[in-house]
């Protein structure tokens, strides 16, 4: 070959190389931390969009969820991203805004995430109410959204096809508490239900009422309180007058903790108290002795026994860190113990990762198809989605665990898993001392 020919070839290759570099620069608006992945293959950065309640009543739980999700983003990026079958390495960039715990901020912010920040995939905010608002935008713009921190069943009965639920649905939240009560005390007959008047808590209360009535319990009180209520004296009086065996209900962290505190302050002693959301939070113990004996459903606890072996026997694919690996990793990163909100945030990322890997693509339709067929187990538990038109995206495999605050050998309050039997760490204390 002559010099000209060689030159042409070299410049051709050079042009091709320049084009590739140009594509790379064009595709990723911002370089992921750590620069281009090792191995030198083509890299692509995917934007994950979501809102966090940096202010407002949902602040505590939402921040933990965001910590979990961000930890997943950092872990995946540090490992060089997800490798697709064609060698492309997918790294992630998280983009978030403050939704102030308000539903009317959600639609505006998620529209911004889709249109301005060019989010490829969306994660829901924390709480069913906010997630429901965000799901509208995901469906409208045809973006796959994984909801986490959102248990209400209603969102998945609206005919959406792009929204997938990581959490156990609300209809399964307190039904286990009724099962636990049945196991502990066959003579218990009366349950009082006091719940927050929001979407999620009302759904849980309704499911519990139906389930408990089926099991021949008498629901002696069934009342709702406004979100943000601080004075539960009249509810406690109503409960006292009805003398139930168990008190169940609650809502989100702030109101549930206050309700538990006021139950204790007024000297009410039901044999069992099972409340939503707040008891699994480490901060619940701030209310002191009022926390003693309180049972709470949790999406996940650090003592659960999900593992690669368990996945195999369940016929699911295993993905992500082991339970104790996640716990120590999260603790090292944020200097706090992970709660189930944190685990849910990380799990949402893992679910997306599983779907992208299975689809070997970041194309929305391919990922959607992969999500529909997903049957996986992570440290968070099983994940499988309902694919029927009536309830598309509803979580069908993940189950709740129930914790109870008990005094440990040194007299300090500590959480124990008391239900289901297969994963418990201690016997339930009944009645509450």
């Amino acid at each position: 070959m002559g010099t000209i020919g060689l030159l042409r070839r070299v410049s051709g290759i050079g042009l091709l190389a320049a084009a590739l570099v140009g594509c790379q620069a064009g595709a990723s608006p911002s370089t992921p931390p750590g620069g281009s992945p090792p191995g030198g293959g083509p890299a692509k950065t995917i934007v994950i969009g979501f809102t966090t309640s940096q202010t407002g009543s949902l602040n505590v739980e939402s921040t933990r969820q965001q910590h979990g999700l961000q930890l997943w983003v950092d872990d995946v990026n540090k490992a060089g991203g997800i490798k697709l079958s064609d060698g492309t390495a997918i790294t992630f960039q998280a983009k978030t805004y403050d939704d102030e715990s308000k539903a009317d901020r959600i639609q505006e912010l998620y529209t911004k995430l889709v249109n301005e920040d060019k989010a490829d995939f969306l994660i829901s905010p924390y709480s069913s109410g906010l997630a429901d608002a965000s799901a509208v935008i995901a469906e409208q713009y045809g973006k796959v959204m994984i909801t986490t921190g959102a248990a209400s069943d209603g969102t998945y009965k609206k005919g959406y096809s792009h929204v997938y639920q990581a959490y156990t649905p609300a209809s399964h939240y307190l039904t286990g508490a009724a099962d636990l009560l049945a196991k502990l005390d066959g003579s218990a007959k009366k349950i009082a239900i006091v719940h927050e008047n929001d979407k999620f808590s009302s759904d849980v209360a309704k499911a519990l009422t139906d389930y408990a009535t089926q099991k021949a319990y008498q629901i002696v009180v069934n009342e709702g309180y406004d979100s943000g209520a601080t004075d539960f004296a009249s509810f406690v009086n109503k409960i006292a007058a009805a003398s139930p065996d168990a008190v169940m209900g609650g809502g989100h962290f702030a109101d549930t903790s206050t309700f538990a505190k006021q139950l204790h302050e007024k000297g009410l002693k039901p044999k069992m108290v099972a409340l939503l959301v707040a008891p699994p939070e480490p901060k619940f113990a701030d209310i002191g002795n009022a926390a003693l004996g309180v049972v709470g459903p949790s999406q996940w606890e650090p003592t659960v026994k999900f593992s690669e072996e368990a996945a195999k026997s369940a016929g699911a694919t295993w993905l992500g860190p082991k339970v104790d690996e996640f716990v120590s990793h999260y603790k090292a990163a944020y200097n706090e113990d992970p709660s189930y909100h944190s685990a849910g945030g990380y799990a949402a990322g893992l679910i997306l990762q599983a779907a992208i890997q299975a689809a070997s693509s970041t194309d929305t339709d391919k990922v959607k198809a992969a999500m529909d067929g997903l049957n996986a187990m992570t440290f968070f538990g099983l994940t499988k989605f309902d694919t029927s038109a009536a309830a598309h995206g509803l979580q069908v495999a993940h189950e709740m665990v129930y914790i109870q605050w008990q005094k440990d050998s040194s007299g300090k309050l500590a959480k124990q898993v008391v239900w289901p039997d297969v994963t418990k760490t201690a016997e339930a204390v009944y009645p509450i001392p």
Partner: protein
Amino acid sequence: MLTQFAASLVDGLLIGFVYGVAAMGLTLIWGVVKIINLAHGAILALAMFGLYFLASWAGLNPYVALPLVAIGGLLAGYGIYVVAVQRVVNAPPLSSLLATFAVNMMIIGTATTIFTTSPYSVTFDAGRVSAGFITVPGTRIVATVAAIIVTGALYVFLYRSRTGKAIRAVANNRDAAELMGIPSGRILALSFGLGTMLAAVAGGLIATFFPFTILSGDAYQLKSFVIVVLGGLGNPLGALAGGLILGSLEGLVQVFTSASWVPVIEFGLFVIILLVRPNGIFPGRR
């Protein structure tokens, strides 16, 4: 039903005392300075934060911190008067309304930026007191006692001291008081400060029961308006009585129906009083 009725009545009366103290602050300012203090709720909420920080950072017992919060309220009121209210005291009512409203927005805006709207709470356990089937948390008993002491002290101050007499004189007829040599400017500032001090005391006491945010004051400000109209403008004892009535009403309504009806009934009562007895159940002395 009877046990629930009695328990709710007791709860309502106890919290009614605290509502009464809050309303006394508003009615004092309304009666003496002749303006409506729309920053009432914001001062109340600031006092909640003040108590929280004294209790958690300085590790003080909340009831030891309360007098400090009260003094803070007095000074804050004096400051607000001098800066925002003094110039509009003799202007048409709208100007003073706008001035105090502006102060309200400034306080809420600044506090939201610093503290955000996440709830705070003072974790303090004062035990409980039981009498038969009625159990009351210790914090409510202490609050009631504090409210009674504060009311008594205010009464003694207004009716047994020289400055109190001056305040009553200015409330009665400002021009005549000035002619008698009473420095009305300073008396007005002091009265405003006393009003905010009472709001601060109420806020501090409420912080020992319930969690709060900077926006929590609004609900108590609204209740204070209803109570002030109920009890008669400018009548502190009327405000206390109004507080007790409103508190009991709140507690008792919830025995029979859902809690969501409480504001409807409260403000329904407000409208009825305005129509039937606009001077209040205990009309203030003129």
